[in-house]
């Protein structure tokens, strides 16, 4: 185990800003890409049902 406490974990040895901004943008963009692809498919499916 590398961390004595949750605060230590989030501090990342004083480099928390760099580590979490890397992970944060990666997570946000990957969620956006996945959700926008799913929404596009749902939209296309809804339009295909219309006469």
């Amino acid at each position: 185990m590398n961390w004595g406490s949750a605060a230590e974990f989030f501090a990342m040895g004083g480099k928390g800003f760099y580590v979490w901004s890397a992970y944060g943008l990666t997570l946000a963009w990957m969620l956006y890409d996945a959700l926008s692809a799913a929404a596009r498919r749902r939209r296309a499916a809804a339009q295909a049902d219309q006469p």
Partner: protein
Amino acid sequence: MALNSLTFYTFASPPRFYGLAGALVPWLWALTIGLTLWGLWLGFFVAPTDATQGEVYRIIFIHVPAAWMGMLLYVVMAFWAAIGWAFKARLASMVARAIAPTGAMFTALALWTGAVWGKPTWGTWWAWDARMTSTLILLFLYLGFIALVAAIDDVRRADKAGALLALVGVVNVPIIYFSVKWWNTLHQGASVSVLAAPKMAATMLTAMLVMTFAFWAYAFAVVFTRTRAIVLERERSAAEALR
């Protein structure tokens, strides 16, 4: 459908692909989530603090997988675009279009995670280093492909133009890969090589590889979903053209 009529081409039919991909996507998501949780656990709780860089090196567990996926997806995109062009295979061209946004995303994320890693370790967000510059060119190739196929109204002509651009751009991928060997600039050498012993602790390497498989499963899930959307969109526009 009789079993003996199943051939390599069976799933090249867009409606069949639509069904098969739809059945696979939930499993791919389960795989993505499972591998991500495992990889992050290894990366943050099992892998030790780096002796020279401290904790900031933990960016590697997304930086290297994102960079690999950016390059891999470009080659896969160019391959399917070429197949679609050469054999008039509609589905192949649709897959190429579906890959582009996800490939561009991974390339941009490789640049971003590299910038926030470079600042605390090299003292700069960006340098015109060979690997970084060639990766930026890769991002522009993706954006060029997306803009080009979107700009041409005739779908088949757009697919052909996109395939040409994707194929010309493929030359950039080996340049990125070997850039750290050919030019001795800022970016460090390869972390993993088939021929040499890994230059990092076994747990660090495992975490990085698990995250790579997680991104790979993610890419399949998203590309399949987006291809399904494109199949429906094209079917509709084909039906409208007949009306």
